[in-house]
């Protein structure tokens, strides 16, 4: 019994890592722009596909012969994917969100645009690559360690460690660097910041770079763990990660990180002890309860409004 619990807890950490990484991207953009970037889940999907093409290319499945060992391919794929995915995110910001922001459109119209952009990414992918699912290549051999009665794979450790490390890195960027300070300043007062000579658009682009590269990272890790890719894979995980970000207190990266792990743990535990079709029902009921008790999320601070 205890072993099962421990094993499930480990699985929950892995599953929660995906949610955390995606929720971090949501919360970064939200914290700066107060924009729910509903296309974020689909950027994760795009990241997974980019990783698929880069790794297939490097492994010699296309015209190029293979000349690198598996681990080197992985080491190259991760940064390349993060860069390319962040390009996708920035492009989206540049062509879809920024013109609307300039026009001073209602915030919710930008949200609808984001939803539409997500649909375009999904269905555009379906249109270009066809409906067949892609099998993500295996780059490193799976190693299973046995600790007591608990089975640990190297992949699981890698996923959990990556998400924790990227959280620490993000936290460092936001609290210690100048760009991070500018990001916090924009979320504090969007109108005073440009007056202080801070290039607001550059900071916003940087935010999208950070958020989308997190999404790219989540995409690779997800594809490594569940190596079947399809165009709609990002949708449901994206919505759920957004819910996780809100439960943690949206706008605060500690909240997103914690919320991701909470949602992951609840989902895995429900599946472990109940029929799996109850997963959404129980998980979201618990989250609804959390939000009813603490309406601003776990780390969120109630906003004071002036009249």
């Amino acid at each position, binding site marked *: 019994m205890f072993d099962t619990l421990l094993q499930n807890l480990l699985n929950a950490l892995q599953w929660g890592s995906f949610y955390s990484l995606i929720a971090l991207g949501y919360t970064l953009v939200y914290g700066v722009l107060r924009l729910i970037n509903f296309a974020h889940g689909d950027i994760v999907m795009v990241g997974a596909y980019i990783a698929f093409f880069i790794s297939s290319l490097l492994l010699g499945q296309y015209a190029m012969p293979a000349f690198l060992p598996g681990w080197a391919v992985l080491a190259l794929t991760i940064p390349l994917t993060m860069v390319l995915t962040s390009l996708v995110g920035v492009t989206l910001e540049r062509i879809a969100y920024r013109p609307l922001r300039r026009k001073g459109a209602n915030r*919710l*119209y930008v949200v609808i645009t984001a939803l*539409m952009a997500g649909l375009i990414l999904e269905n555009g992918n*379906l249109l270009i690559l066809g409906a067949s699912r892609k099998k993500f290549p295996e780059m490193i051999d799976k190693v299973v360690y046995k600790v007591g009665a608990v089975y640990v794979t190297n992949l699981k450790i890698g996923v959990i460690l990556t998400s924790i490390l990227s959280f620490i890195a993000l936290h460092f960027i936001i609290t210690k660097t100048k760009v991070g300070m500018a990001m916090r300043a924009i979320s504090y007062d969007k109108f005073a910041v440009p007056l202080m000579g801070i290039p607001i658009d550059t900071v916003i682009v940087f935010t999208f770079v950070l958020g989308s590269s997190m999404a790219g990272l989540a995409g690779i890790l997800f594809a490594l763990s569940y190596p079947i890719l399809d165009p709609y894979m990002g949708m449901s995980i994206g919505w759920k990660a*957004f819910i996780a970000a809100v439960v943690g207190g949206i706008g605060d990266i500690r909240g997103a990180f914690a919320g991701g792990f909470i949602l992951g743990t609840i989902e895995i535990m429900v599946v472990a002890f109940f029929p799996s079709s109850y997963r959404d029902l129980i998980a979201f009921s618990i989250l609804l309860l959390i939000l009813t008790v603490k*309406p601003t*999320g776990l780390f969120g601070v109630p906003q004071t409004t002036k009249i």
Partner: protein
Amino acid sequence: MKRFSVPILLVVLLTTLMGLAWFEVIDLYIQTIILFMGINIITSTSLNLVNGNMGEFSCGHAGFIAVGAYVSSILSVALFTKSKTFGAPLLPPELAAYGFPLVLICGGLAAALTGLLVAIPSFRTRDDYLAIITIAANYIIISTIINIDTIGGARGFMGMKRVVFAMEKCAEIPWMILWVFIFMVLSILIIRRYMSSTYGKGVEAIRQDEVAAEIMSVNTNRIKLVTFMISSGLAGIAGGLYAHTIGYVNPKSFDLLKSTEALVMVYLGGMGSISGSIIAAVVFTLMLELLRPLQIIKWVAIPLLLIIIMQFRPEGIMGHRELSDIFPRLKKFYKFK
């Protein structure tokens, strides 16, 4: 004359539609599109009440549609037809034509009660936190339906076509067009009257500033409760009509994608504009059907089109205005309160 122009227009429209369907001038496909238009009008105007007029951001409208669809389908199938699940009809099938509107209203009431799931948390939360509650509510409703095996679970529920056939035994007229039309007009009327009542002024006040409204002695909790329940109740009626038009419901067809469709119609039409929502619902339904030959390209073309519309008209087709605000001369010809 001014007072009667709108009712006369509506009656003429209804008789034309029913006549065309009766003499089979328009085939079943076009009839279905017209039905969908009516249903989408109910969906978009009801969501517009919460998202446009009250300024909240509800993204889980499909959940309430699902509740209405399931409750009214189960009731009508159990009452008027012989089915595997519920056995012999509880009432004589000849009553179907009279019982159907009651069944629809029962579905609406059930959906309104489910609206409490969102309305009560909305007392303390706002904005994006409320958005999340509505998304979670949508997931919870769908997941609950999937887990009830007697009503088909994930396989879906069918048999509503037999109810329509039972109605046609009473009198051979296109019943669904009649009901969709009546309920569409009713729901627009309810929303219109609600918005011009004292409660409606409160709704406008909440949209502009909730705290200030509360200080000015607007009972915000009560208004939110009533508004959410009306909105979700009308969505439930739309769901019941949808279920009986298609003849089959499946929990998967009420997921967040359906909610997204409703959101698109509201924001395309313009927040807080009833005529905008109606126009957007008609345009959107037509767009879905006209672009059907494009197949998969359709699902890229429609979002792209919407993004382009948003870029050029960031306030939607109508903005926060009604048709009579744009063409003031129209006011001479009709009075619609």
